[in-house]
């Protein structure tokens, strides 16, 4: 993996948290650029050559949301947000505005690095097509629209298939309810969140070993879903 040369900007006003994040990143061989305000963060990102931005939502000079909107107008760099637990609505708003994933404080080194790795991987592999997926005892071939489990072909309805495809395309990344609704059902279905829940339940019934304890189609409570292979 080429994280050795990855350059990560951390935008966080609390120096001790910056220190812990940078220590962890250095362990992975990433370069860590510390910024203490949103303004400094945007400037650092503007200088280019950035692979990931880790953003704390509680910045003093600008709301996290504004930062993301601003950055997204000129950069597709992955954004990982750090936020207090029980601020789900803030996280959802940030994710819908263009952030890629989130972590709830306090977070351990292991969790942080796992997310960082996943995001960097997606970022560098975004141009590669990925029609084949394997998880548990399920195999999916998106190019031929075949989903099989334990060697036996499964039947999925159109929407079930589309939902699975969207989740696989965003493997490892959290998807908000809204984003999933938009991608699977199209715009204008905002009020029908229950459709999504029911279909995820159906997919779990068909694809998971124990639908009540899913291992791949994970619930991110209050936020959305995440596919994990």
């Amino acid at each position: 993996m080429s994280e050795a040369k990855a350059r990560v900007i951390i935008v966080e006003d609390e120096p001790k948290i910056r220190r812990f994040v940078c220590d962890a990143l250095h362990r992975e061989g990433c370069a860590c650029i510390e910024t203490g305000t949103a303004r400094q963060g945007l400037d650092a990102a503007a200088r280019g050559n950035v692979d990931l931005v880790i953003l704390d939502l509680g910045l003093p000079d600008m709301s996290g949301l504004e930062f993301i909107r601003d950055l997204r107008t000129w950069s597709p760099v992955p954004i990982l947000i750090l936020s207090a637990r029980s601020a789900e609505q803030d996280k959802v708003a940030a994710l819908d505005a263009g952030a890629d994933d989130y972590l709830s404080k306090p977070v351990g080194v292991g969790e942080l690095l796992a997310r960082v790795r996943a995001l960097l991987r997606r970022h560098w592999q975004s141009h590669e097509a990925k029609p084949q997926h394997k998880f548990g005892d399920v195999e999916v071939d998106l190019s031929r629209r075949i989903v099989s489990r334990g060697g036996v072909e499964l039947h999925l309805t159109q929407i079930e298939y589309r939902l699975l495809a969207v989740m696989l395309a965003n493997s490892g990344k959290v998807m908000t309810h809204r984003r999933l609704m938009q991608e699977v059902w199209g715009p204008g279905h905002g009020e029908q969140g229950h459709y999504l829940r029911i279909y995820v339940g159906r997919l779990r019934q068909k694809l998971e070993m124990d639908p009540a304890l899913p291992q791949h189609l994970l619930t991110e409570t209050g936020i959305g879903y995440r596919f994990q292979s």
Partner: protein
Amino acid sequence: MKSLLPTRWRRVRYPLAAALCILTTLGAFPLREFLDLANIVMLFLLMVFGTAVWFGRGPAVMAAFLAVALVDFFFVPPHLSFAVADAQYLVTFAVMLAVGLITSNLAALLAERSEQAQLREHETRILFELARDLGSALTLGQVADITQHFRESIDLDATLLVADGLAAKPSFQEFGHHRLTELEQNIARSAYLSNTIAETDSLASKDAAIAFLPLNAPTHVRGVLAVMPRTDDISSVRLHRPLLESVALLVAIIIERLHYADAARHSELQVAAERLRTSILSSLSHDLRTPLTSLVGLADVLVQRQPALPEDAVETAGIIRDQAHAMHHLLSNLLDMARLQAGQITLNKAWQPFDEIVGSSTRLLKTLLANRTLEIDLARDLPLVHFDAVLLERVVCNLLENAAKYSEDGARIEVQAHTRAAWLEVAVCNDGCGFPEERMKQVFEPFVRGTREPAVAGTGMGLAICKSIVEAHGGMIGAENRPGGACVRFTLPLGTPPSMEEEGRP
């Protein structure tokens, strides 16, 4: 019927009037040679007129008759007899009597009217002063003092009874010198409830006669004003009745104003307290969480360091990290409890399957549940339920944590969910020591612990938080012991989930 006489002379009005007649006679008698009869009659008429003005109507009528008799006797020939020489003197007498009666009537009327006008003016002035003083009253005590003061100026005693609240059986705060007996209090209460004036007279009670005027304010009756005369004469109360009714109205309005001013002040205080509490909670939240976040993270960095630190250092760092995590957990619980108690948590409800919560909770507590046997039993085809996912996840996590804490390694923990009538019933049961029987009722109160052993860490807020959240959703929660362990069950209302259109055949 009043007159201009001071009170103590009132009893001798008639004799005085008679005396005046005699005086006039004595005065005119020497002049009868020089004055014409007409002029003497005028003098008597003047006297009658004066009697009317000073002594009132009754004595004036008597004086009129007496004047005629005296003129007849002393001044009309033949003198010193009631006989009349010339018949036209009868006309004189008739006219004299008529004029005497009419003028005395008019004079008396005028005097009466003038006196009444003065009385009214006096009352109006009193009312004005009362209104002005009450206008600046700030407490019920001041209102009572002001009415007392007013009372004294019209010679009555008053007790102000202010109703406590608007209950059907109100209790009264009494202000006044005269303590009411129980009978009197009951009469006061009935006057308050029926909103009519009640009166007792001295036959009904041993004490002085009392009038009870309800204080009828625009929105509600606020109490009763009990008025008693200083003497035993209830008529003085009746006399001032219109005035007392106006006073009662004024006092009622003022009491109502004070009540609403109080209520407004109270709300302002509450709002200010709320604001203070919210800002304290938010800053506590941020200020306490930040150092904990760095603690957890930095301790973890030490644990994960490559090349690794010496084994005991790694272990110590791990303990620091775990303790910091535990502190953060505790802090979250405390802050959530504070917010729930302040009613500040808004529910973000959505229609969703309950299974998801079971899945995400068990996943979150993977390490804690590692040494327990988890049995999940969810009914098939559970309908969608309307709830706040984050909060319900808290509930299930708290229950699972408790189940793990109060059981041994390898013990069973069961999670069940099924519908019963209009409710979703969820149970989290575990094999273990169970709840202490004597404290079953209190386990859902904050800071009540399940065991006496301090070995089990925690502060006893988990169940209290669960209760707040479940009840906020309109459900109920309960705990019970079963053989070999304990169960906590809660319910959520089912309602009618939104419908869904199925896809057409693909």
